[in-house]
């Protein structure tokens, strides 16, 4: 999302080797192996803390550093990545610490809950410690429990997509999905594409598709990014960000991609799959200008409206979540208000990879100090903190510019499916609000089943809120992913495991220290 050059805090090599460990080192579980989780893990393990890094993907890197599978034999994966050098440092540092035994990496582990235990050895931030409950294997059925004295939540974010008539047609994909395909699968999804929605992600998606040989018929941005230049003009450290934007603009020009700002996709057309989209201009109030509609033939539409933080684990732990921003609240050390729980990266507010690295680094250092019973010295992470401040200001400005058009919901016909899991239409949501007395997303859900399906409203939550005319709020999802009842029934049943770094098989599955 950004090419902010990272300072020394992003360089694993700068930490030196893991410090000496007298006795049993404190244990830190880091959930998520994207930029924030990697930075936190490396910062903590370099300071004498044993880290278990838990991630759902096959390989570390998260969405930002998503890697093509080795079997695909990509010759130049860096062509699609910014910050390739930073990634290499993170990757090599991780490999070193894994080899030295300071980090245990658990890939393909889907965490469904982090439990705060009530008893245990005293003298650590949370006396009882934590159990990270995960599911392993292709079927996500095999339980794994990770015990830790502290937890860093680096669970990232997920894409927000607002519906429009025709959005369920094959050929309509999310902008992030297109990006993931380019980075991970190297598969080009169509011949003629339109990239639409709002947000800074649309630029790299459009240039990435173009570079992969797709004809990008248009980049349709509902905001007016020129306002951003004005807004950002007052911010420190804007130069590299603006340069990044200018770089994309140049690239778009070179690839002859038409950019339509203050435009939106009002409908996707096609019988069996996508054949064309209708785009229209927006007036200053965010309404479609009548008569401005035009049809653009395409077989792929990559659409996205920004990102939403993944706060499920934080919420079930009881961490305070900022209701408006829908992100986990943290202090200067990246600590949540639950003792022993830190949060870093997109989960504390969407801000891209460079900000995630800075936050992860601070979280890892703070956790290492506090888990070893020391008061951390913030001067040690001055550079990261300064970068964090600058980037947060920048993304706060971005947030004010890249917002979906105010009246997007008016474009939805009553038969437009809003919740794809449960096939709930916009008309059903409108009836729940207009005639049945629903005033919030929860009641709409109970009356219509919108958000009750497999994705638990992650996809349709913003759309339902928009249709209902109420504020988007974080939904409480005590299970971050579905969990078999047999696993749930035995969760945490095992006692404290024996060997500190071994995996032991037992009734409740293996437990990892």
């Amino acid at each position, binding site marked *: 999302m950004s090419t902010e050059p990272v300072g020394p805090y992003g360089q694993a090599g700068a930490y030196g080797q893991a410090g000496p460990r007298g006795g049993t080192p404190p244990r830190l579980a880091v959930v998520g192996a994207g930029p924030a989780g990697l930075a936190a893990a490396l910062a903590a393990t370099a300071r004498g803390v044993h880290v278990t890094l838990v991630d759902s993907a096959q390989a570390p890197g998260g969405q930002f550093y998503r890697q093509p599978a080795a079997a695909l034999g990509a010759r130049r994966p860096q062509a699609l990545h910014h910050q390739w050098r930073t990634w290499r440092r993170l990757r090599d540092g991780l490999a070193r610490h894994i080899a030295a035994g300071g980090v245990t990496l658990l890939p393909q582990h889907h965490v469904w809950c982090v439990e705060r235990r009530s008893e245990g050895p005293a003298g650590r931030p949370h006396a009882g410690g934590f159990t990270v409950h995960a599911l392993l294997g292709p079927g996500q059925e095999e339980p794994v429990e990770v015990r830790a004295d502290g937890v860093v939540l680096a669970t990232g974010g997920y894409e927000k997509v607002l519906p429009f008539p025709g959005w369920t047609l094959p050929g309509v994909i999310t902008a992030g999905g297109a990006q993931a395909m380019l980075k991970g699968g190297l598969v080009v999804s169509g011949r003629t594409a339109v990239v639409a929605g709002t947000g800074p992600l649309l630029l790299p998606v459009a240039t990435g598709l173009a570079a992969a040989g797709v004809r990008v018929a248009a980049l349709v941005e509902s905001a007016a990014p020129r306002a951003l230049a004005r807004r950002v003009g007052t911010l420190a450290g804007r130069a590299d960000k603006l340069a990044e934007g200018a770089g994309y603009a140049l690239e778009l020009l070179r690839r002859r991609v038409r950019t339509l700002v203050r435009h939106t996709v009002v409908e996707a057309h096609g019988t069996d799959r996508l054949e064309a989209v209708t785009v229209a201009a927006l007036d200053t109030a965010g309404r479609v200008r009548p008569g401005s509609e035009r049809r653009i033939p395409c077989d792929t539409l990559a659409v996205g409206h920004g990102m939403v933080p993944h706060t499920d684990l934080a919420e079930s732990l009881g961490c305070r979540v900022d209701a408006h921003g829908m992100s986990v609240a943290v202090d200067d050390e990246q600590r949540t208000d639950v003792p022993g729980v830190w949060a870093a990266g997109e989960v504390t507010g969407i801000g891209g990879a460079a900000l995630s690295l800075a936050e992860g680094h601070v979280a890892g250092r703070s956790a290492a100090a506090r888990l070893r019973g020391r008061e951390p010295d913030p001067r040690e992470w001055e550079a990261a903190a300064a970068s964090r401040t600058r980037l947060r200001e920048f993304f706060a400005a971005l947030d004010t510019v890249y917002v979906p058009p105010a009246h997007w919901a008016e474009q939805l016909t009553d038969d437009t499916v809003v919740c794809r899991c449960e096939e709930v239409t916009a008309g059903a949501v409108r009836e*729940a609000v207009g005639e049945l*007395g*629903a005033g*919030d997303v929860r009641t709409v859900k109970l009356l219509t089943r919108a958000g009750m399906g497999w994705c638990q409203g992650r996809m349709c939550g913003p759309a339902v809120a928009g249709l209902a005319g109420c504020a988007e709020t974080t939904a409480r999802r005590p299970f971050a992913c579905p969990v078999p009842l*047999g696993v749930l*029934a035995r969760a945490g049943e095992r006692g404290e495991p024996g060997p500190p770094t071994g995996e032991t098989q037992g009734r409740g599955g293996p437990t990892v220290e």
Partner: protein
Amino acid sequence: MTERLTCDVVVVGAGMVGAACALYAARAGLGVTVVDRGPVAGGTTGAGEGNLLVSDKEPGPELRLALLSNRLWTDLAAEPGLGTAFEYDPKGGLVVASAPEGLAALEAFAAGQRTAGVAAETVTAGQLRELEPESAPGLAGGVYYPQDAQVMPTLAAAHLVRASRARLLTGCTVTGVLRSRDGAVRGVRTDRGEIHAPAVVNAAGTWGGEVAALAGVHLPVLPRRGFVLVTEPLPPLVRHKVYAADYVADVASDSAALQTSPVVEGTAAGPVLIGASRERVGFDRSFSLPVVRALAAGATRLFPFLERVRAMRTYVGFRPYMPDHLPAIGPDPRVPGLLHACGHEGAGIGLATGTGQLIAQVLGGRTPDLDLTPFRPDRFAPRDEEPGLRGRRFAARDGNPGRRGRFVAHEEEAE
């Protein structure tokens, strides 16, 4: 709402009980306004399972109210469009025993219920497997209750309010009860203006005590937390509401801490709902893994196939319980014009229709179908509020299955 509204009755609370009060009052010819600080079904109604049960009640006033309510639910479900709108399902309840002693006690309990008009059929171990082919092998038997049914509670509340054609004010908080100089009720004050009416019905559920306090009277309604686990959608593998009778011995220990007992049922939409837990922890909404773990363990013991079925989510609610486990229904002799319809604990969905009918009969000046004496809102002397005393009451009740039936642990989670 800037103008002053005038109507015949203000119902405070747009949950299931408030909706039923609105419906029957409107059908009695009264002009009704329903007011709620949240949306429709925003409290306990939206956090329940929607059970209409007679099976868990011993002979007495609550069972009489349940039987009346059951008949009224059947009538409502037969009205064009209404039954399907709120997913009425006369599925029947099945109480199972794992050991012969438990079965004997269960049959004795059912015998008492039959004399009070409950249909209860003894089921052998073999018949149990016919009724519920997926139930655990080795259960001793059970009792089948064909009158038990289920609705989708949020839909039921919303559609009953709509059918009543009452004026519905959501997101509107009642801040005071207006009284005339002689003390009689003359309406409510809200954060959006006054609503004038000669009668006010307190149907605020778990928050009924707060509304009563606005009128200057004391009503001891307190929250009792419960979790419900929801699975992924399944084909109909659990056919009835199935629950175990053998936990009774555990319940005798009167702990304010966690009590769980397996209650398993399918829904029209596919997911299986698993209850029920009880904790007296105030209005604490935080997730508790130990509680849902116990629910999952209980459910998988009754239905082994659930081991591999995924839990999608869990939700929490607060049952409005009163010291003697009976709701407060009827006029408050301390404040003329104030009526109460709250404190139904875990049985509010099932008991809503009867409650609504009785309230409407009182409002219309007619003789109610049931004697309201056991439900008198002023039956609690202040000494009952003392924590020590309340604890002893619970100990006596929960430890004495004979007095109020062995399903005392169940009454709380009937929703």
